[in-house]
């Protein structure tokens, strides 16, 4: 056992990378749920985003076009959920599960010719002087742009929900869709926008895995991150900064336990492997003991009678 092999600076830098897919997917789902829609298809939208981004990045040679394509891919797949739940008024839980199964299937179809291909590398940020500062440089100033984009999305979602009229209307729709409708707000239209935003974020998160974290394409490579994102939104009490905290905690323990495994700590691998899930949920359960609760219309079907 050699704990000195673990470099804390690299550990923090890599936990941010490990956390970003989860962060992106969870913050998108947070917006969807704040609008009163429960979309269980996060995993499906992530994996479709992963392959859309991967294939476009490989074909064009540009990772940025790849990320753009992944957002579009996730949003397009979420349109299927829109048609099912907002137009056909189907059950949201069943539709979300179907979306995940469909996404997993179509992504492996799309990705058949991309197995074993190497994607173009995504450049990391390099700011002279700032990136060279010891400790702070590698942790704060030397990541890829998408990681910063993830944090910016969290900040933007938080500010929008808290301070803007759009955010207020979105929360109102999720809180009581009948009252929002009576006041003349377009419940369905607002929800469609939210669902598509959630799809785009999930798609970005998926592409972050296939283009940066792992850089390659394998079937089912999101490996349950979408489900973790769903749980994270609940345990974070629908608060954006807690989503960030939860995602970094999860990413941190994931990276740490890998390091501990490599260092040969005398804890069975199974316990280490389950530790991120257990610790993240435990911490967030304790945090969510305050009285904040789910949006009251979450998962309920809205039908404008008359």
């Amino acid at each position, binding site marked *: 056992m050699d704990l000195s092999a673990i470099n804390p600076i690299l550990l923090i830098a890599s936990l941010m990378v490990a956390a970003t897919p989860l962060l992106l997917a969870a913050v998108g789902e947070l917006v969807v749920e704040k609008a009163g829609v429960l979309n269980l298809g996060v995993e499906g939208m992530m994996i479709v985003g992963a392959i859309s981004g991967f294939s476009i990045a490989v074909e064009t040679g540009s990772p940025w076009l790849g990320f753009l394509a992944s957002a579009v891919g996730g949003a397009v797949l979420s349109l299927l959920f829109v048609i099912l739940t907002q137009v056909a008024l189907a059950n949201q839980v069943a539709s979300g599960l179907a979306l995940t199964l469909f996404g997993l299937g179509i992504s492996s179809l799309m990705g058949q010719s991309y197995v074993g291909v190497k994607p173009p590398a995504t450049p990391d940020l390099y700011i002279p002087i700032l990136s060279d500062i010891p400790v702070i440089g590698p942790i704060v100033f030397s990541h890829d742009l998408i990681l910063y984009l993830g944090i910016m999305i969290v900040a933007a979602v938080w500010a929008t929900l808290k301070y803007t*009229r759009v955010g*207020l*209307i979105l*929360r*109102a729709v999720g*809180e*009581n869709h*009948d*009252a*929002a409708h*009576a*006041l*003349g*707000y377009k419940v369905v239209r607002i929800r469609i926008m939210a669902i598509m935003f959630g799809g785009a974020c999930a798609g970005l998160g998926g592409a972050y895995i296939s283009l940066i974290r792992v850089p390659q394409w394998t079937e089912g490579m999101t490996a349950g991150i979408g489900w973790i994102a769903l749980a994270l939104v609940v345990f974070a009490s629908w608060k954006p900064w807690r989503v960030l905290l939860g995602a970094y905690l999860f990413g941190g323990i994931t990276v740490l336990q890998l390091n501990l495994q490599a260092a040969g700590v005398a804890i069975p691998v199974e316990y280490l492997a389950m530790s991120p899930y257990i610790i993240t949920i435990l911490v967030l359960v304790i945090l969510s003991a305050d*009285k904040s*609760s789910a*949006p*009251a219309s979450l998962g309920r079907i809205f039908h404008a009678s*008359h």
Partner: protein
Amino acid sequence: MTDTLLSIRGLTKAYPGVVANNDVSFDIGVGEVHALLGENGAGKSTLVKMIYGLVKPDTGEMVLRGQPFAPPEPRAARADGIAMVFQHFSLFDALNVAENIALGMETPPPMRDLAARIREVSETYGLPLDPFRTVGDLSAGERQRVEIIRCLLQDPKLLIMDEPTSVLTPQEVEILFQTLNKLRSEGTSILYISHKLEEIRTLCDTATILRLGQKVGTCVPAKTTARDMAEMMVGSTLHTPERAGRDLGEVALDVSGLSVPSPSAFGTALKNVHLVVRQGEVLGIGGVAGNGQDELLNALSGEVRSENGAIKMLGDPIGKLGPKARRGLGLLTAPEERLGHAAAPDMSLTENALLTGSVRENLETRGFLKWGAAQDFAERIINAFDVRTPGPSNVARSLSGGNLQKFVIGREVLQNPKVLVVNQPTWGVDASAAASIRQAILDLAAEGCAVVCISQDLDELMEISDRFAALNEGRLSAPKPTQGLSVDEIGLMMGGAHGMEVAHV
């Protein structure tokens, strides 16, 4: 009062199978308080929804200040100075007062300015409100203030109020009327919908009466008796419930020292409740909504268990028994919330009849259901209580609120209860149906049933109950005989006006 603000000409709106409004015409003058009267299903709500732009009329037109007026959506109606206070409050529990009000405005000012304006308007009209409180924590009267202030901030020309007083204490009603009178003196017109004829007589200048979607008359309420107006609404002579003189039997329900925490975050805990009801007696329990009514009903029905000795029925402790066991003993309950609590919305009336009737009506044998008997039971309820529905196979959700209420109450009454607990038995039910429900409750009492009637309608409680008590923040006042009880005394028992004050200007 000579100028016409809004003129409604020949409005017609049909839904599949029913004409909600048929060629309705009337005028609302500037600064007039105009009452819209009618039974459930007479088309009042549809009519105001058309004025507010939520529903488009099939034919007919509206003229606002000489201009054609056809709002495609509420936003347009609001821009033209129409504001509406909804019957079921259109508020968002998790948001604060200021956010709720901002949602009802077209171009709200920044939160800080808005909060200041809310304080200003609320003080001017004697409706104190803290802009930063969460709406879920407010009482029904305070919630209504939020709605009213939301309307007032838009400086409306026409304020539509749909059954505004059904949840208020008498003092709160009085203050609301002062606010409305002040608005009238400022030239605001008010379209006022209510079942309560005495209120309309004191407040309104003109009344338009609707029956089955058609206008059947106009009157000056101050010069018409409540009985005449009721008969115009119903189209026949009204039957007033009669109270037969009766002897009280032994104690049927004895609740002592009942304390139960509330299961929900926004609920009220019951604190040391004592009550005794004898056979043949009706105990009326008043109080502003949200002061423990639901919790009391749940504790009596067995949905929430308590200490075994806290509730005794005919001398036997039943506090630890569940609802089914209590039903078996003859303690039946009808909760307030019709859809989801008293009835399962998506199940048929037969299935709903079976859900509470299986024990006492023998609708099951060894776990197998007797569908035939259940359907007979449902049909008996439908016939006895004049429930308007095509048949017992229709789902509960498809019935109008008043009709479902008749079904829910009828279902319990027909099971020959020994003790009956009802919460808001005539809420949203029209005058004639309410009278027949009250009569059924009195008939039950005359047969020796002990009745606990929880209601927000004080006239109703005065009419049917022998003794009256009020719930205030989970505490029950000592019951007093109903006869000779004054409105002031009742108001005090209910906890006063909850911080309301008279308009300052």
